[in-house]
């Protein structure tokens, strides 16, 4: 049974579009950013890197220092040598 207070999906086009834009950004820039920030978490706002760190908590602190909410940034861990995880 669905709750009646679940938000409608009718007005979510902007969310889908933003997600697609983010994925497209990483597809286009991943290799370039990987060369600059290997094995690091990178946060991007408006197409520009605003913070990078090997540690997620440190990345969070770097954003807070700039008064950037975590959800404002597109964040990825950039690696060319990932652990082979079996999830």
């Amino acid at each position, binding site marked *: 049974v*669905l709750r009646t207070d679940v938000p409608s*999906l009718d007005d979510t086009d902007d969310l*889908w579009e933003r*997600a697609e834009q983010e*994925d497209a950004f990483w*597809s286009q820039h991943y290799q370039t950013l990987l060369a600059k920030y290997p094995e690091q*978490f990178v946060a991007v706002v408006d197409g520009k890197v605003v913070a990078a760190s090997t540690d997620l908590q440190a990345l969070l602190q770097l954003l807070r220092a700039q008064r950037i909410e975590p*959800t404002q940034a597109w964040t990825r*861990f950039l690696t060319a040598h990932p652990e*082979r995880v079996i999830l």
Partner: protein
Amino acid sequence: VISGFFDPTAATWPAPQVRVLVYLPGITRGWVAVTLLLDTGAMSTCLHPRDAIFTIGIDAQLLSEPQQWPYHQRHGGVGGQEMLYYQVPAYYGFRHDDGRRQVIQAGLDIAQPHDSNQALPSLLGRNVLEHFRVIVDGPARQITLA
């Protein structure tokens, strides 16, 4: 039909992914978009720290305190390592290729942050996938939930 995609940035091989909207009552104010790794081996859908903090917007301190979460449980991976996950109710929003929208109610496990799970992808597991016929077409590089 819901189309996923293979992440071209995955370092070792293209990873099958699906974009989903999630709504977590009491945690999010509305729908939030997140891209999940399709994992038919995972019993439940889960968020790992990067997505929990930076995509969903859950406070990092809150995630580190199990006593703040009514339901939590240790889950083991294939490698034997156990991690603590918080169980929360969730709604998943999907967009079909023809524009139709679909909502599924299922649980979500949110991982307690740990050095070993910082970079892990979030997973779309069997508690949600059981609602679909899942087609992973590697040669054609197509992911389909039908």
